């Protein structure tokens, strides 16, 4: 470096650089100054007006939840507007005294019946939250009535930061109808929020589907919330919308067309009074579509979208009820299949050539059967029977002997083919329970603790359906697929998902889940049995007959506790030789299946076929 020689030049050079730096600073500050001039002088009026009268907010646009329709387009579930009284931290007074007086004022508001409108606990929580939740309004009164909204609006000048907003809530116009299949919505619980599958998708305060279709298809129903920028005035009301700030429209949720048929469902609901515990399942055996599903006693899903006080009352009522209305008995109630199971015993025997229409057992029915040192009674005296007549009269003695000859392994294998057993059928609503077809191994395993051991004598009970566990859904699937002999289809409630324009987004494709087939010769005899139960003299299920339609079916009276009335079963299918509907009915602890359950199944089928004749009539 030649610093010694050019010292002067170097200093001059350095001073120029300092000057250059300052020029850069000057230039940059000038740009800032010009921008400030532009904001504060040129656009002063706009900005002042905006800051004085308006507030800019980012707001979430709630996506509307999809509806649920029945298969013919009747609305089963829709949305209703619901008013929420909210507290807006940005608009409420800041000083402690003013906050206190606002608190007391709100607490003092009474409705026309003189009751306090807002309870102090939730108000206190809201005020505490307002300290840190600044970006969204906090609810102080949920699902307010129009009267309550008008009271708040009258006092709006005294209540800074308090106003009403509208949100959309679920409405079930048919009340308790199909409540278990449809499910309900409620605010997401803290417990659910902690689970990984909910954590990222939901925020606290979100309403989420619980049980039934609402839970199963929650994501499809939800759609996607949007965002918009709005200007709100000093009272928190929206004045205008600001475009161009990254708004996203809300994407409404999909509509669900269910497989339920409102008319069939209504008939089923009517046939099964709320005072009786029980369930009805009607299914189309050709594709697994559930036409009706009733579980009694019922619950009203509307309760869960009411305001907290009423919701809690409703919840307590159903949750503490000893009859367990929350339980969907159609899929989660497990019962002994009773005499309906004789169809399986017969089928297994026929399939293996151990039974036939010409085979009679040496011990004819004289009212009972002696096995070892035990005497097992029959419910009547039936004499000499072949398999069809044994089914018609539901003779126990015949099936004791058949069961002993066929053995449980064969019987259970045949039952599993048609949807019975430990594997769930996989219906598209949560909560389905497994059934049970015991054999020696599983019986011993299950009764390990109690010390009960498998014995051959148990076959006597099992062959007439005492000892197994099935759900009403399995029972309907069983009788339906026995009649079709064309496979067991996965039962389902979702038929189609459609967007708002009606375009089908997703369709449920029928799916065979069990082989559900037997020899043609076996099939013929089983059909004859089903036919004779309903249509032949002395048949136990004659009350299930429908005029003009050939119905097949099987009754059952399940013993479950000594000294109590039996569970009444009826599982029917119609038209027998070209099945469209299979119905299973159970009434807990009611009595005989033929007397009580069969007429209910009849009403359901009648409703189904009256609809059909109506449709045919229209076409002609």
């Amino acid at each position, binding site marked *: 470096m030649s610093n010694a020689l050019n010292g002067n030049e170097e200093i001059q050079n350095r001073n120029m650089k300092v000057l250059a730096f300052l020029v850069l600073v000057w230039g940059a500050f000038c740009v800032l100054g010009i*921008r*400030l001039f532009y904001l504060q*002088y040129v*656009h*002063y009026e706009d*900005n*002042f007006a905006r*800051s004085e009268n308006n507030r800019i907010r980012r707001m979430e646009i709630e996506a509307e939840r999809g509806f649920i329709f029945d298969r013919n387009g009747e609305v089963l579930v829709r949305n209703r507007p619901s008013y929420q009284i909210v507290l807006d931290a*940005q608009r409420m007074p800041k000083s402690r005294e003013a906050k206190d007086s606002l608190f007391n004022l709100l607490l003092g508001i009474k409705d026309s019946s003189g009751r306090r409108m807002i309870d102090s606990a939730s108000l206190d929580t809201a005020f505490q939250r307002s300290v840190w939740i600044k970006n969204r309004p906090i609810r102080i009164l949920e699902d307010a009535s129009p009267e309550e909204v008008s009271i708040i609006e009258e006092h709006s000048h005294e209540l800074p930061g308090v106003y009403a907003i509208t949100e959309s809530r679920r409405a079930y116009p048919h009340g308790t109808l199909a409540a278990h299949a449809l499910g309900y919505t409620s605010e997401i619980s803290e417990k659910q929020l902690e689970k990984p599958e909910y954590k990222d998708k939901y925020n606290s305060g979100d309403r989420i589907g619980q049980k039934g279709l609402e839970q199963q298809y929650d994501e499809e129903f939800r759609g996607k919330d949007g965002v918009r920028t709005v200007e709100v005035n000093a009272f928190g009301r929206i004045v205008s919308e600001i475009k161009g700030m990254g708004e996203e429209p809300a994407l409404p949720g999909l509509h669900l067309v269910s497989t339920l048929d409102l008319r069939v469902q209504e008939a089923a609901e009517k046939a099964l009074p709320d005072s009786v515990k029980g369930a009805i399942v009607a299914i189309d055996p050709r594709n697994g579509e559930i036409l009706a599903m009733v579980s009694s006693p019922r619950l009203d899903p509307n309760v869960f979208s009411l305001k907290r006080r009423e919701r809690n009352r409703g919840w307590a009522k159903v949750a503490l009820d000893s009859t367990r209305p929350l339980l969907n008995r159609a899929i989660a109630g497990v019962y002994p299949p009773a005499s309906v199971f004789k169809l399986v015993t017969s089928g297994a025997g026929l399939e293996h050539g151990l039974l036939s229409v010409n085979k009679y057992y040496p011990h004819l029915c004289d009212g009972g059967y002696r096995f070892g040192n035990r005497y097992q009674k029959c419910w009547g005296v039936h004499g000499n029977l072949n398999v069809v007549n044994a089914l018609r009269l539901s003779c126990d003695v015949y099936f004791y002997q058949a069961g002993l000859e066929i053995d449980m392994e064969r019987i259970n294998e045949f039952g599993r083919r048609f949807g019975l057993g430990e594997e769930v059928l996989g219906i598209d609503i949560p909560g389905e329970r497994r059934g049970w077809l015991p054999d020696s191994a599983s019986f011993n395993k299950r009764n390990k603790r109690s010390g009960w051991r498998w014995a051959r004598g148990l076959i006597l009970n099992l062959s007439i359906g005492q000892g197994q566990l099935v759900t009403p859904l399995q029972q309907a699937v069983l009788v339906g697929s026995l009649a079709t002999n064309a496979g067991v289809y996965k039962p389902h409630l979702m038929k189609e998902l459609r967007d708002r324009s009606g375009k089908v987004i997703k369709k449920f494709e029928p799916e065979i889940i069990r082989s559900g087939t037997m020899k043609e010769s076996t099939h013929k005899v089983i059909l004859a049995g089903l036919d004779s139960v309903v249509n032949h003299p002395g048949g136990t299920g004659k009350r299930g007959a429908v005029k003009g339609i050939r119905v097949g079916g099987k009754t059952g009276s399940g013993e479950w506790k000594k000294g109590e009335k039996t569970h009444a079963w009826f599982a029917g299918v119609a038209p027998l030789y070209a099945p469209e509907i299979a119905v299973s009915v159970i009434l807990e602890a009611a009595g005989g299946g033929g007397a009580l359950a069969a007429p209910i199944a009849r009403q359901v089928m009648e409703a189904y076929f009256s609809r059909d004749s109506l449709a045919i009539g229209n076409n002609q």
Partner: protein
Amino acid sequence: MKKDSILGKTKKMDWLFIVTTFVLMGIGVLLVYSATASTPGIPFYQNFWFKQIIYFTAGVVVAVGLTLVKITFWRNLALPLYLLSIVLLVVVLFFAGDVKGAGRWIDLGFFKLQPSEFAKIAYLLMISTWLSRHPVDFLKLKTFLMPFFLFIVPFVLVLRQPDLSTALVFTMVTLTCLFMAGLHLSEVFFIVSPFFSVILSHSQIAYSQLLWGAFICILGFLLYRRRLPIVFTCVIFLVNIFAGYMSTMAWNHLEPHQQKRVETFFNPMADPKGDGYQVLQSMTAIGSGGVTGKGYGNGTQTNLSFLPEEHTDFIFSVLGEQFGLMGCLIVLGLYFLFLWRAMEIAKMYSHPFVTLVTSGVCAIFFFHITVNIAMTIGLMPVTGLPLPFLSYGGSFAMTCMFLVGLLCNMRLQGYKMKGRN
């Protein structure tokens, strides 16, 4: 030179500089007070404005102390301080994964140390020490080797935090010091030209091809005028062309969400929930101040908590709303006065160390001031750079006062530096 006496020192004190600094600090406390005083039920010593006074008082003590440090110490301390800062940056990176949001801090119990603040100062001293002994020559690439190495280590560490804006502060200091240590202005321009090429040719910018074309023309003209060796000319030119085309190609290769992130950075209004809201509120607040402002304590935007982080990064909008254009221009004027008086020190002594430290300190201040204000008025992306003397915050107040102390030290003891080494 002058006598080494107290009298001699006080004579050389730049009272205009000192007064400007105190005025800015005073304005800062007033603004923090008006932005946060409304917190009820808290004893006064827990309020932000009071804490700010404490920070500044402590800062003044530190600054006075630093002024009295023997100037030659700085050059001896530079390397240890630099190494210490690197270690701290590594430590903070190492712990970043463990505690959420603690990525930039080391908690010492009584004090939260922000290593990147400390690193700014240490790096400035280190690069100044090196460059004062080894001037750079654009045509001798060897001379850039060590400065580049000194720069890239803290730069990458800070970038990994990730703290882009602080990393850019390092860049700004480096460029200023290189400029002062021998580079011609056009040579600095050549160094940064590829980055301009990347940005100007970006397809999201209106008329990007025209802008970039014009830029390349200017570059070509400057290269022609400078008459650099042909290899240099070609490399610089080709790197620019390459950078320009790569920019578009790289952009097209990005995933949509990555593109969106870049867009949001350059255009905060496009971000629905985050930065756009802040900037819009800040611009509304400043604009509604008008020429004379709404008066002290009457800022509606501020008082209604519409402004997020109003007492830290967005303090300038509190100023703009309450004191209007006049207040803003006065503060800008004060900042200019401050930088001007500070840069005077660079001209006072012949030793390059004084020049380099002084101009580096000014570069840090200038970058913070410009980027922060530009952010509040919607001219630049939202970054976390606070505004010197005005923003609330202990760590940054300490940094500022440290730098002020360094400036005073240079001014009062600069004559002691003699010779090249």
